[in-house]
């Protein structure tokens, strides 16, 4: 398994996911710093991402869109809060209008990426996402998530079986 830990916190609308790679921190950082590499993993093959503006310097804005199977486009942006190559990246992420200007009606979330070198050439990456609202989560999932919908259907049983009082 490539993902080593996941922590989901409904009370804070947040999730932290940890993973380890058999590669250097520098190599893992390139996945974020090189827009052509970013495009190959950010969206699923059915919803590829295109980064039209990409600079990870603090204060910069990164602009991207995702293109669906029907040619539908969904635009988003990152405002770079801080970047410390190859160890840390903090962005405020939001949605944009079709012309690329930020959609100020939708609140922005925060994504914090931490990259840490381990022994024997391995590297741990953790992604912490903090959502401003459930609406923002829904919209984000709607961007490029055909797969997500299929997963959701399979999860109905698990949701119904969930006992919210458990653990008291």
């Amino acid at each position, binding site marked *: 398994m*490539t*993902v080593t830990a*996941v922590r*989901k*916190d*409904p*009370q*804070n*609308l*947040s*999730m932290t*996911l940890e*993973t380890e*790679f*058999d*590669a250097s921190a520098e*190599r*893992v950082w390139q*996945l974020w710093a090189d827009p052509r*590499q970013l495009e*190959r*993993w*950010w969206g*699923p093959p059915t919803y590829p991402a295109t980064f039209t503006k990409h600079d990870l310097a603090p204060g910069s804005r990164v602009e991207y869109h995702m293109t669906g199977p029907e040619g539908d486009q969904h635009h988003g942006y990152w405002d770079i809060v801080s970047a410390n190559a190859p160890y840390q990246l903090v962005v405020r992420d939001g949605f944009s209008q079709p012309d690329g200007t930020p959609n100020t009606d939708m609140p922005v979330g925060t994504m914090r990426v931490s990259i840490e070198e381990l022994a024997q050439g391995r590297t741990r990456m953790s*992604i912490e*996402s*903090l959502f401003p*609202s*459930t609406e923002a*989560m*829904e919209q*984000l*999932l709607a961007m490029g*998530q055909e*797969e*997500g919908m299929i*997963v*959701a259907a399979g*999860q109905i049983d*698990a*949701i119904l079986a*969930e006992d*919210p*009082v458990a*653990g*008291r």
Partner: protein
Amino acid sequence: MFGALADHTRRDIVRRAIDADEGIVELASHYPMSFAAVQKHVAILERAGLVTKHRIGRRKVVRTNLEQLRIVRRLLDQYEELWRGRVDRMRDLIDLSKETTR
């Protein structure tokens, strides 16, 4: 407001408010913090739709919105799947670059 203690407090409030008929004053008595601090936690939970205030006679009680809690859990599960897909693709890219530099 997003520290570990805050996380713990909010989780506890959500759990208590599932079946207890407590107002903010009663809730606050369970935690070693000020009434104002507990009020703030409740306000954050209220904004997220996870708790709502109900009027019972003259009292206002805080209740957990189980439906919303389920919705948020489901969204977080989907978001986890989204990132698992991304991590798989990241790994493929790294493996590919290893092959080409060999």
